[in-house]
């Protein structure tokens, strides 16, 4: 029996070294670099195809000055998607369930987009606070709302990723415990619970990939406004 359902999110350490160190370095090891050969192996072909399609899709709405960010977005996307998917394996630790990591990723990148906008095109950056066509009496309130919405963006980015992954892992653990306990008492209900667990795992795989994508997509949107 699990002592407490939140124990899975504690950062485990062995001989003083935290497992998070391995969990963060492993994504970089699973992506080999292409060599000088014309045709590399199958893994490289898959990887190259995925990265090219993704970055083409992401950079389409952004103007040319924003294309400097392509490498950063690719790295971020690969990092998040690998960490999320690896966390679905048994006994592994998911670093993105820790709010500290997600805020450390979200806050500096958001701040960069804002600073780029404010330093290069201050008038246009400020003009984002007032959408076109608002009625005059609403203007003061709307500016306050837009300011709040701007400052809440990094918090939302970090917390969204954390909450989605934490909730998913927690749900899986709860339903698995329920199925495990029920199997001796009511086998049919345990079977139903197992089916729910299977569906939930499929959802978790999807969520892992979608959340990574959403993170990078929103950052690209913030960039698009400001660059």
């Amino acid at each position, binding site marked *: *029996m*699990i*002592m407490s359902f939140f*124990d899975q999110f*504690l950062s*485990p*350490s*062995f001989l003083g070294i935290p*497992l998070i160190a*391995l*969990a963060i370095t*492993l994504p970089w*090891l*699973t992506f*080999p670099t292409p060599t000088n050969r014309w045709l*590399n*192996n*199958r*893994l490289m072909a898959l990887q190259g195809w995925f990265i090219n399609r993704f970055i083409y899709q992401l950079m389409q709405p952004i103007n040319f000055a924003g294309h400097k960010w392509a490498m950063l977005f690719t790295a971020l996307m690969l990092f998040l998607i690998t960490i999320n998917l*690896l966390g679905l*394996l*048994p*006994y*592994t*630790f998911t670093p993105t369930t820790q709010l500290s990591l997600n805020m450390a990723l979200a806050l500096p990148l958001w701040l960069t987009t804002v600073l780029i906008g404010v330093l290069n095109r201050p008038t246009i950056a400020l003009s984002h606070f007032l959408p076109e066509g608002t009625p005059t009496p609403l203007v003061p309130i709307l500016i306050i709302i837009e300011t709040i919405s701007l400052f809440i963006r990094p918090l939302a980015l970090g917390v969204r990723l954390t909450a989605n992954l934490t909730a998913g892992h927690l749900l899986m653990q709860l339903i698995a415990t329920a199925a495990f306990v029920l199997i001796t008492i009511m086998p049919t209900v345990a079977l139903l619970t197992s089916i729910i667990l299977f569906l939930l795992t499929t959802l978790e795989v999807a969520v892992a990939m979608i959340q990574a994508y959403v993170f990078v997509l929103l950052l690209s949107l913030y960039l698009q406004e400001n660059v």
Partner: protein
Amino acid sequence: MLLEDWAASQVTQGALLKMADRPVPVMEKRLMDVKLGELSRWITARDFTPNGILGALRRGHNRYYNKYINVKRGGIGGVAMVLAGYVLISYIWDYDHLKHERWRKYH
């Protein structure tokens, strides 16, 4: 000097000079060629500096990569072995915490 004396002795004895028969210092042998008695000397002579460890990790990575992944028709086996190893290492890393989660009547 040592090599020439040995070669001269081999010629006088009429033995064939094979590449594998020449004496090699213990430090440069591969692990499978080291005799049991020389094992402790071999281990202490290895390069444990950060650069040495990095070099060893890189060599290991290249060996695995070139054997299982960088092949014409690689399958999921290459990646699956890495993931299985990762699961195992995570289990061992976390064992002190996991041993409390066994099925027990009273916790």
